């Protein structure tokens, strides 16, 4: 790691001020950023630690029944505290990485990084979540802008993620066996006004919605409804773990499994 200054603001205002300086970067749980720093793939002059900000932590239910997760809430807390309100979200959080990673890694960190194989982007996009920052609310549909790219501006902190709770939902992840990252992950959520299908791990463009499957499942919420569909392999990731065609196939298989699991 290159040397940097690590600051621990006591309030959100102090964090915003600290992030306003040149080459400053937010530090969530560090479970992606610290390995990245060790590889010298990032070289911030200053890291602003968000882990001490109690106001960014915890899970609550708002007046509309949506599950609201503080930006610095670790995965293990979401797995425990969202279980009664949004089981599919809790199950997804409880299967990210391993237990020690889940005790540190945060939802805000995961969404801000937008790794193309991360689980949380699928939950946020699949739920039509709202990403709340210090400045504004961003719809998940506008937030994810491609691999490792989001609508966040420099220094913009995710304070909360608001998930409308669907009637039924499930996430299915096909794990790359060494890293446990999603080779492909599909989040399916059925709302009163239609079904959302969000896919992670598969595309060069990062997390995306599979519109044809959403239309078919909105008409008939069963795995059979997508039997006739297929996905183009053009934009899919191809690497030593799987070809684009393999990933395109997995998307359909996992979508079917997610629909069945959602019941």
């Amino acid at each position, binding site marked *: 790691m290159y040397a940097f200054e*690590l600051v621990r603001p006591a309030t959100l205002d102090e964090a915003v001020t600290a992030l306003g300086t040149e080459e400053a970067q937010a530090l969530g749980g*560090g479970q992606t950023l610290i*390995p990245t720093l*060790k590889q010298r793939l990032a070289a911030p002059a200053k890291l602003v*630690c968000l882990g*001490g900000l109690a106001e960014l932590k915890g899970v609550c239910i708002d007046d509309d029944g949506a599950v609201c997760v503080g930006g610095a809430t670790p995965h293990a807390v979401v797995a425990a505290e969202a279980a009664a309100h949004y089981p599919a979200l809790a199950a997804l959080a409880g299967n990210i990485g391993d*237990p*020690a*990673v889940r005790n*540190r890694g945060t939802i805000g960190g995961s969404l801000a990084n937008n790794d193309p194989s991360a689980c949380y982007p699928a939950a946020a996009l699949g739920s039509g979540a709202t990403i709340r920052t210090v400045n504004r609310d961003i719809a998940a549909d506008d937030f994810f802008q491609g691999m490792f790219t989001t609508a966040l501006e420099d220094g913009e902190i995710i304070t909360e993620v608001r998930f409308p709770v669907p009637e039924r939902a499930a996430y299915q992840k096909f794990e790359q066996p060494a890293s446990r990252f999603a080779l492909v992950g599909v989040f399916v959520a059925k709302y009163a006004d239609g079904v959302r299908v969000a896919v992670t791990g598969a595309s060069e463009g990062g997390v995306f919605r599979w519109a044809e499957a959403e239309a078919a499942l909105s008409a008939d919420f069963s795995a059979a409804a997508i039997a006739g569909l297929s996905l183009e392999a053009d934009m899919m990731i191809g690497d030593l773990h799987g070809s684009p065609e393999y990933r395109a196939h997995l998307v359909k298989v996992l979508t079917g499994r997610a629909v069945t699991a959602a019941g």
Partner: protein
Amino acid sequence: MTRVTMTVNGKAVSGEVEGRTLLSQFLREGLGLTGTHIGCDTSQCGACVVHVNGQDVKSCTTFALECEGAEIRTIEGMANPDGSLSTIQQAFQDHHGLQCGFCTPGMVMTASALLAKSPTPSEAEIRHYLEGNICRCTGYHNIVKAILAASGQDVSHLGHGDAVAAE
């Protein structure tokens, strides 16, 4: 350099660290607590697991400064006050839950965190919880057995250390 203060195994400690000083580095090089092992240094292997405020974390992927004011427990703090082995440590010895021993500190710390949350876990639950701890001797079977035994469950049906091939 910045001064960091924390409680490690019940003792107040402090030291001068850089922003980039990892908790694992502070424990090993700053405090001489070399029981916390560095296996991969990329948060894959779990040899460096310690407890921070009761939570199992990978100390190679946590900055020392993030632990200002925290209560840390390492493998050096696991034995009973009279110096005898704790229940989990004793179970690892009784059931041959270690071969080379390199992964053992992390295994014991992870097992202890699991048992604090789930006092009588199933075998499947134990295996799932050890997902982030790698044993390069592939001695998982006896590690799982030791944890089952430490939780007071009967392990007599699991046989002796002949099950490595079953992994």
